[in-house]
């Protein structure tokens, strides 16, 4: 009897654990099935290098282009037509109130071992939109890869003028999936602020498209675009980032995959995120500390003056 009772309890516990596991999996679709497609297909990532300030005030920013998930049929060697375009605007004003379409100009991409490199340089404060495109073909399937990022570089060279002289890239150059982000030129992208991401292909928005977020501090998270092809992404508070300096930033990669027949389209956007500047400001605590100190100090002064006056 006792033995069978134990077995019953054991079975009940097992059922409960299994039920909880199923429930957990159902309740956490965002992380449970995170970015299956994004995890399986190769995708490009623009990875920021260390900014370098030259003595004349010019600032160089190397960008590395990594190709992730190159396995199976999709080998790095299959990657072809790696090209890059860079649009540049003055850092403030025009880029913040940008209404005209960006003019991308061809920028040389160099191969360095297992990765590709491109370098941004400016002598004046400018904002940049960078787009890298590549293709990979295997077994009759073609993958169109794009990677994008927007950034500011604050050059300090005296009398510096616009650097880009290359021809504007023709519309035919733009292939693959577009992943635009709003705000696009955000001087200080930070956690706990919302970004609206729109995924489209050839000007056509893509509803119900998966967007996977790769953040080194968290497991991959998966979102679906709405009927307008949009998804609102709010980077969560990151205690590890908070412990670093205000200037420290982490790189977060948003990956979206879409397929039409044998053509696969993979878009990646790199976000360089800082910790949130204001969300941790506790005004109640500040006022309490201020009030308590003022009361104690004021009281002490009044008491001391009163005591001194007494004969």
């Amino acid at each position, binding site marked *: 009897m006792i033995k069978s009772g134990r077995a019953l309890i054991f079975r009940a516990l097992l059922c409960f654990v299994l039920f909880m596991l199923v429930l957990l999996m159902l309740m956490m679709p965002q992380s449970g099935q995170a970015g299956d497609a994004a995890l399986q297909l190769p995708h490009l990532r623009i990875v920021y290098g260390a900014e370098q300030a030259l*003595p004349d005030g010019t600032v160089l920013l190397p960008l590395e282009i990594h190709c992730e998930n190159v396995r199976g049929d999709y080998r790095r060697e299959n990657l072809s037509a790696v090209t890059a375009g860079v649009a540049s605007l003055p850092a403030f004003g025009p880029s913040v109130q940008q209404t005209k379409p960006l003019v991308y100009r061809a920028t040389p991409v160099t191969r360095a071992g297992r990765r590709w490199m491109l370098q941004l340089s400016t002598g004046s404060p400018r904002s940049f939109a960078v787009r890298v495109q590549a293709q990979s073909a295997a077994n009759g399937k073609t993958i169109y890869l794009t990677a994008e990022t927007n950034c500011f570089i604050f050059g300090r060279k005296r009398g510096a003028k616009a650097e880009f002289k290359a021809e504007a890239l023709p519309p035919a150059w733009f292939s693959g999936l577009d992943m635009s982000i709003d705000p696009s030129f955000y001087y200080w992208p930070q956690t706990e602020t919302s970004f609206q991401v729109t995924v489209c292909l050839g000007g056509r928005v893509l509803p119900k498209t998966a967007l996977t977020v790769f953040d080194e501090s968290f497991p991959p998270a998966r979102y679906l675009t709405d009927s307008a092809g949009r998804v609102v992404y709010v980077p969560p508070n990151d205690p590890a980032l908070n412990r670093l*300096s205000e200037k420290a930033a982490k790189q977060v990669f948003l990956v979206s995959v879409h397929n039409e027949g044998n053509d696969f389209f993979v878009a990646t956007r790199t976000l360089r995120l800082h910790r949130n500047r204001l969300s*941790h400001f*506790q*005004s109640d605590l500040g006022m309490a500390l201020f009030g308590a100190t003022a009361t104690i*100090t*004021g009281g002490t002064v009044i008491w001391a003056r009163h005591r001194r006056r007494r004969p």
Partner: protein
Amino acid sequence: MNITNLRAAFQLLFFVVLIYGGRVGLRLGHFLPCFSCPYVSGCAGQCYLMALQNSFWGMEMPLAAIFTSRGLEALLVFTGFLLLTLLLGKIWCGWICPFGTLQDWIAAVRRKLGIRESQWSWVQTDRLKPVKYAFLILLLVIPLFIAHMGLHDDFTLPFCQICPAKPVLPLFAGNAGYFSVDTTNTITAFMTGLSMVLTALFLVGMFFKDRFFCIFCPLLALISIFDRIGFVRFSKNVKTCIGCANCQRICPVDIRSVHKETSKQNVMSPECLACMKCAESCPTDGTLSFQWLRWTLFTSSFAGAIRKLARGGHDE
């Protein structure tokens, strides 16, 4: 118009210009020798202490970069500060500084309430004098430690982080946001907590003692370095001084040296704010005078002292 009212009018004018001037496009640069706080949204110019901490020595510019274009930029900012300091010297403190003006307004409220100013012994005053130099050294050294010794970046702008002007002056632009503790990490919590404690201490101090913050002001310490070569001079005719000690009694920062001086003509002390209250209350003609190069800005007179006395002397 007497010098006290003239000064009050100038202070009000500069307070409005420096706090709100940026809203009408006024840009006076980031090398002002007064507490025109950059944390005030829409301010017209910025206190030089921020540039000093951030650019000249700080992590944005390692020592190796001093002889580059960035070094030149820092040098230009310093030159701007130096020129303004040489031109007006301590007049920045006594007539222009918005935080100094605020202190005068708080003291005026105290006087209206009939509360007497706290009196300190000379020993106490003398002991507190070096604190402003300690602040100045710390605000120069800490950014160097960040840049070259691996001190955490969150100590950036160390003085700005604890300066009482940072939470107080933005109140005039409708921003009470700096009365907060930033719990992002231990360092930010410590620095913002310290800022709240010091702000409370200084505000209480300002209420009970005239120009309380100026005793500890590192910018005053920096400006006073250039007193000897500045265009603003404060001189005393020791032969006509009758030793009444009015200058000592009326001084908001308790300077004794003007009264005690018996031989030298130049009586500009490092603590002097050029408020000219001493010259206004001096009852002998031409004993105390403020000059700008050769031109006399203000000089003491018997008639002036009598008028001041008639207005209520110290407590006007």
